[in-house]
């Protein structure tokens, strides 16, 4: 959660940091419209301006609303440790590689965030990624179908597979854990069958899938341009929101907060663009991953559909009584997870040079789920943010990259990644308990 510095109108209470309410733009600093409203004298009123910010921030941290703070701190610690052990860790080439490697699993983790928001789990994403890659490879390479069409069919296959899981879960009432465990076995069987005797199909030169992770926008204007557009869009959205809220006499973000947020965002974006330009330019893979994140985040936070996902994840019966089609929400969310899994599988195929019988097997599933959880999405449903997929996968990929640079064996990587996942869940549980004692759930 990036909202660790969220402010709330004149109160101690703020949106529960670790992402309960999806509503954004809700929090404001100095209460414009709230002044004439009856205010409970027991509420701690926030000081105005920037000092109030820090007080509020400290109070939140003490109350257990850590937001993305642990993940960001974790990323910094990871960077410092590996950089001190191997000076190549933060080199342009290494950072650029991380940016490409996170795309496939990151897109899959985005799908998992959707499912976790519902309070469910999808254990099949690794196998579905394998099926997606296999479908594309068989159609495009073996049968010579149009490359774009094959990619599209692979993604739609993932959508249908996920929808099927959702059907058994929502309509038949089989626990999602069991349905997707069956899927985990069944779809990897289908994958092996599709791959037939060959066992692996190499990505042909110049194919769409090769470009997924192989194409870089080499013009330095691309990376800087994207950074600029991103920062301007972000600042613009904040400003427009604040103006509309002021016009409606609602509490709005103070300008100081907008400035701080925009500057932080700009620093991250332009440093990333600079480093990428030092290497091979802006990777297409990263652009696609960011596009998936932005679209998913908008869908989850700003649309009725997203609101329905949170409602079903928080209290399915209340959602049903509010007239929400709970079954449809569940089926569609599993469909989205399957679709993004298949899409992510194509990136993995692209990275590893082709589709194989074992693509998506091994620790892919665990990395994907770990990414969503490390990033701060609750395993218990109804709380989380799409961006946790990015933060979580960055942590996991950075660790892998660092250990690779140090030449550590994969068994050590497994153990360390396992320990990080455990740490993330411990932080989640502890902060949840602190929130309870601080009057939150």
């Amino acid at each position, binding site marked *: 959660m990036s909202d660790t510095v969220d402010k709330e109108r004149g109160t101690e209470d703020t949106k529960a940091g670790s992402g309960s309410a999806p509503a954004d733009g809700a929090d404001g600093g100095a209460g414009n419209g709230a002044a004439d409203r009856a205010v409970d004298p027991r509420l701690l009123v926030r000081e105005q301006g920037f000092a109030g910010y820090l007080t509020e921030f400290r109070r939140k941290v003490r109350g257990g609303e850590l937001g993305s703070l642990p993940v960001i701190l974790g990323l910094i610690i990871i960077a410092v440790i590996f950089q001190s052990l191997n000076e190549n860790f933060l080199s342009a080439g290494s950072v650029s590689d991380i940016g490409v490697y996170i795309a496939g699993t990151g897109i899959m983790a985005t799908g998992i965030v959707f499912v976790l928001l519902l309070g469910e789990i999808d254990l099949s994403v690794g196998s579905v990624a394998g099926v997606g890659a296999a479908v594309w490879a068989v159609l495009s390479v073996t049968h010579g179908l149009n490359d774009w069409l094959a990619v599209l069919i692979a993604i739609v296959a993932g959508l249908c597979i996920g929808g099927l899981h959702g059907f058994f879960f929502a309509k038949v009432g089989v626990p999602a854990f069991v349905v997707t465990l069956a899927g985990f076995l069944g779809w990897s069987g289908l994958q092996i069958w599709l791959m037939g005797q060959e066992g692996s199909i190499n990505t042909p030169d110049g194919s769409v899938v090769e470009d997924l992770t192989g194409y870089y926008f080499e013009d330095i204007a691309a990376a800087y341009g994207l950074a600029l557009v991103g920062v301007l869009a972000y600042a613009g959205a904040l400003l427009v929101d604040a103006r509309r809220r002021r016009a409606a006499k609602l509490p709005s973000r103070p300008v100081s907060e907008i400035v701080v947020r925009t500057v932080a965002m700009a620093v991250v974006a332009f440093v990333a663009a600079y480093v990428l330009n030092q290497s091979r330019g802006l990777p297409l893979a990263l652009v696609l991953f960011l596009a998936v994140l932005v679209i998913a985040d908008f869908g989850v936070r700003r649309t009725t559909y997203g609101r329905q996902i949170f409602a079903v994840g928080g209290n399915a019966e209340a959602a049903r009584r509010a007239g929400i089609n709970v079954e449809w929400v569940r089926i569609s969310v599993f469909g989205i997870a399957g679709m993004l899994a298949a899409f992510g599988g194509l990136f993995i195929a692209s990275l590893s040079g082709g589709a194989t019988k074992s693509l998506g097997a091994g620790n892919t599933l665990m990395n994907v789920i770990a990414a969503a959880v490390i990033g701060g999405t609750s395993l218990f449903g*109804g709380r989380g943010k799409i961006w946790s997929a990015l933060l979580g996968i960055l942590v996991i990929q950075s660790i892998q990259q660092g250990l690779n640079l140090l030449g550590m064996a994969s068994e050590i990587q497994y153990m360390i990644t396992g320990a990080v996942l455990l740490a993330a869940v411990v932080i989640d549980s502890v902060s949840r308990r602190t929130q309870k004692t601080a009057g939150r759930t």
Partner: protein
Amino acid sequence: MAKESVLALRGISKRFGAVQALTDVDLEVVAGEVIALVGDNGAGKSTLVKTIAGVHPIDEGSIEWEGRPVSITRPHDAQELGIATVYQDLALCDNLDVVANLFLGNEARHASVLDEIAMEKRAMELLDTLSIRIPSVRIPVASLSGGQRQVVAIARALIGDPKVVILDEPTAALGVEQTAQVLDLVERLRERGLAVILISHNMADVQAVADRVAVLRLGRNNGVFDVATTSHEEVIAAITGASDNAVTRRQARTEKEAAQ
């Protein structure tokens, strides 16, 4: 009855496994009138309300809306007709903030993009009319007190434009002032020409706002009384069943008078 009924239940029965929760229940709900539904614990009041709201589809019987038969099989159907319900167990999403809960299933939006500002504004106005102090409309309802949650649930029913409002023990957790506000609200709804079904164990509240009292006992109708002409004791007798005969005698008498 001279005024036409918005909602009429005829011969409603509902079973839960071995429990016959409702047997052959009739109820008429008239626009511009407050009907109180009373009965002992487990009498079937909440179950009746849930059949109207579409939470539990009925097993037998028929529901008429403005004179024509309708089938209510899911909450969406009831909402479409214009029935808004405040459940005894509140049915709020703890993880969502106050605004999101108020508008759940009924969001202000452009296409399907949420209009948070319109919703927040409306939410504040609504909560002001109920004179409840909530720290912020943007905190998750999990961190509200029981009474605050109840007011949010009540306010929820006023979003949209319902014709029938069902309140299942709306004042159970409320303070003195908030209870008065809710009773005021019930009267205002009646003045606006809405029909209100009010479930309450508090006879004083019932006496204060209701026009008629329908009594349920062990899942069956046990009389409908005019509040103005019925004493406290008679209603209580019907609820407890201590004088079944008196009630039936009385009904027979009034019916005879009406026929003359």
